[in-house]
């Protein structure tokens, strides 16, 4: 039974990766690398973890997901469409004039997007605000956040990290998509963020380190995180940029470049 569930989630993640390839291919621009690295985490959240009602996207008791690394918009859009927030066909309008699928997520344009992001480092603060509101309103929804590893070079992330621990926001669970690459090269070369787990722990967070492509580990980590009281939780997910497409994996060049038509074909064949 549990094995069946994992298999279904893995298949869903593959479908989401196919969407990412088709969308960025059709748009001719976008960020496939970091969308693919976070695909298993986001699939787990939208299909096994979060309390949602796609028919009622503003339901007050819904769980929230903030894509702090907003450039992974194709990943978020694919998950929302697959989950039924809008028709899957709309995915191919990504980045076109008039499309609600903006280059970076816009909460005013697309149902299911909880917060407009794109400028890095701002999502965790917003998530904290939502979590404080839940507490004030006596609601038990949770707020999930996906941060990029390059993104945590932004100082504001650490202001938010400090505040989440100070206010004991145990209804905040953050993932770090630790794929090790940013635009200018390896994170370790551009501006090292290590030791990552120790930093979050020192800021007062509960920290787990997992394989961000292992569905079972992701689900187990979330379950464990949800049981933590009095502390926000960080799940450091070791991931591979471009995961799932052999010629994109660990290639920094695929951070912000869309696949050409023949590359789309090759990628989709690998994901079949």
């Amino acid at each position: 039974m549990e094995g069946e569930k994992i298999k279904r989630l893995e298949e869903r993640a593959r479908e989401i990766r196919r969407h990412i390839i088709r969308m960025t291919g059709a748009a001719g621009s976008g960020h496939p690398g970091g969308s693919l690295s976070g695909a298993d985490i986001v699939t787990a959240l939208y299909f096994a973890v979060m309390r949602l009602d796609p028919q009622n996207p503003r339901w007050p008791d819904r769980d929230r997901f903030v894509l702090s690394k907003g450039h992974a918009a194709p990943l978020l859009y694919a998950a929302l469409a697959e989950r039924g927030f809008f028709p899957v066909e709309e995915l191919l309008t990504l980045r076109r004039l008039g499309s609600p699928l903006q280059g970076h997520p816009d909460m005013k344009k697309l149902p299911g997007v909880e917060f407009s992001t794109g400028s890095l480092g701002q999502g965790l603060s917003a998530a904290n605000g939502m979590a404080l509101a839940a507490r004030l309103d006596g609601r038990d929804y949770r707020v999930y956040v996906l941060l990029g590893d390059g993104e945590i070079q932004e100082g504001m992330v650490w202001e938010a990290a400090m505040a989440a621990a100070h206010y004991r926001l145990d209804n905040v669970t953050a993932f770090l998509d630790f794929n090790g690459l940013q635009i200018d090269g390896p994170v370790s070369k551009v501006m090292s963020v290590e030791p990552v787990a120790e930093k979050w722990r020192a800021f007062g967070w509960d920290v787990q380190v997992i394989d961000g492509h292992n569905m079972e580990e992701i689900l187990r980590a979330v379950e464990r995180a949800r049981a933590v009281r009095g502390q926000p939780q960080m799940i450091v997910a070791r991931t591979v940029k471009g995961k799932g497409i052999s010629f994109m994996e660990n290639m920094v060049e695929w951070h912000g470049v869309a696949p050409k038509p023949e590359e789309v074909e090759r990628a989709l064949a690998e994901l079949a």
Partner: protein
Amino acid sequence: MTKIATRDAYGKALVELGRENPDVVVLDADLAKSTKTIEFARHFPERFFDMGIAEQNMVGTAAGLAAAGKIPFCSTFAIFATGRAFEIIRNSVAYSRLNVKIAASHAGITVGEDGGSHQSVEDIALMRSLPNMTVFVPADAVETRAAVRAAAQIRGPVYIRLGRPGVPVLHGDDFHFEPGRAVIMREGNDATIIATGIMVATALEAAGLLEQEGIGVRVINMHTIKPLDEETVIAAARETGVIVTAEEHSIIGGLGGAVAETVCTHHPVPVYRLGIPDVFGESGRPEELLEKYGLTAAHLTARVREAVKRKGR
């Protein structure tokens, strides 16, 4: 004349709002005693969040609170609220028209002794440049209370500019505040002074002096810089032929900029801008600084006289 600082009026108005509306929450960045949000904190500790010396996170957290239905008021000094946190206000707040109120105190040179690093003379320009943003610069305590209450009614971001020193109370209790609607404080047809914030009192003083010389000056209190009351500005241009703007802010991009933009397009007449002349401030007593940078009734009077002389040339 009774003097009350607009930040004091803000502190009181927040408590009032807090009583009436349980969704009002307040955030500060370690300056609650100075911005007067401490009053709200005393009455509603569970709805007050001190975010420490971290203005970016304060504004970002407020954005999240607003996304979840709260009406957050964020306060710190104007320089940090609009400068340090500018891009957060742009992308996390204004871009999504989130219901966040930035009520910033210690604006302008009347901060005084703390000096130029703390004297915000560009905040109006910054906030005015953002789509979806409303910008209020109240002239006195009565107007501040009204502006704070109006801000809570507006669904979207609002910037409220507040000052440190006591300023004369200009309005009676029957004052009616309409966002985006300027108040004509005094009629006159020889020239118009359009003033905002603490310069409204100075403008009234100047107009009184000029009347004795036979110059009739219309005084417009522009408490809302955005959306600007263009109709009142254009009427002043048409009916008085010359405009002098007065603000405790850089002459670039603030009230003077907004008025000049409107006048140029709709009814070109000379517009003279009295303000901080594209320099940073410095330490000194507020009244000394106002004198040095020309923000007094005497300077304003001279400027209007000159403007009237050049009128129609």
